[in-house]
């Protein structure tokens, strides 16, 4: 029963990674990357590593998103890829 929860979370994780790679608007990519971080934190909780999950949620949602948004404002919002 344990592995079904993790399988679902891994599926959402991979779909989130596909969205980050595929989307053209970099702001949408940053927000999707935050969702990816939260799913990673949920996987860590389901594995029993609460401290790692806390760090992942705080850093992935707070610091990475904020700095990425500032970097996008300083450069360009659209991806050339």
């Amino acid at each position, binding site marked *: 029963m344990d592995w079904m929860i993790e399988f679902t979370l891994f599926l959402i994780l991979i779909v989130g990674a596909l969205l980050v790679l595929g989307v053209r608007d970099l*702001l949408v990519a940053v927000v999707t990357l935050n969702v990816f971080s939260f799913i990673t934190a949920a996987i860590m909780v389901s594995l029993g590593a*609460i*401290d790692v*999950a*806390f*760090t992942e949620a*705080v*850093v992935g949602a*707070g*610091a990475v998103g*904020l*700095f990425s948004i*500032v*970097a996008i*404002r*300083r*450069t*360009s*919002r*659209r991806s050339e890829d």
Partner: protein
Amino acid sequence: MNGSPDRDQRDPCLDESLKEPTDSIIVDIASRVITPFILLIGLYVFFHGHYSPGGGFQGGVLLAAGILLLRLSLGVAVSQAIMPTRMTLRLAAGGVLVFLGTGLAAVFLGGNFLDYHYLPLPGLSPEYLRYYGILLIEVGVTATVMLTLVAIYDELLGC
């Protein structure tokens, strides 16, 4: 952040809009109300790290998030009152010095490096000496992480 077409043609170093206060009164009031609670939760996570998940790193990032929310919404000039830009990296280095000083104090008082058993805190049993030694180094970690994040943000904006 409305994606105006002329933003990409401008020199990015001249884009000063992130340094100015927001136009929206909703964002202004909401950030002013939310920020004390974010800082309080950061302090709780830091001081309660001995009993629950948390500790120096997570509490530091939460405190930095509170300050950076003020930097984003009220503008860089107004939010200098809570943490001046020129003090950030110096206080971050001070955090590392607190950590190193805790270790070196144990060395000079006869123990190994970072052996809290030898710390000069009077009237405490060795177990509680270790307890407060952990708290001391967490202070250093928290100061370094929080002020380094604020310094990186300020350097990103200050073009």
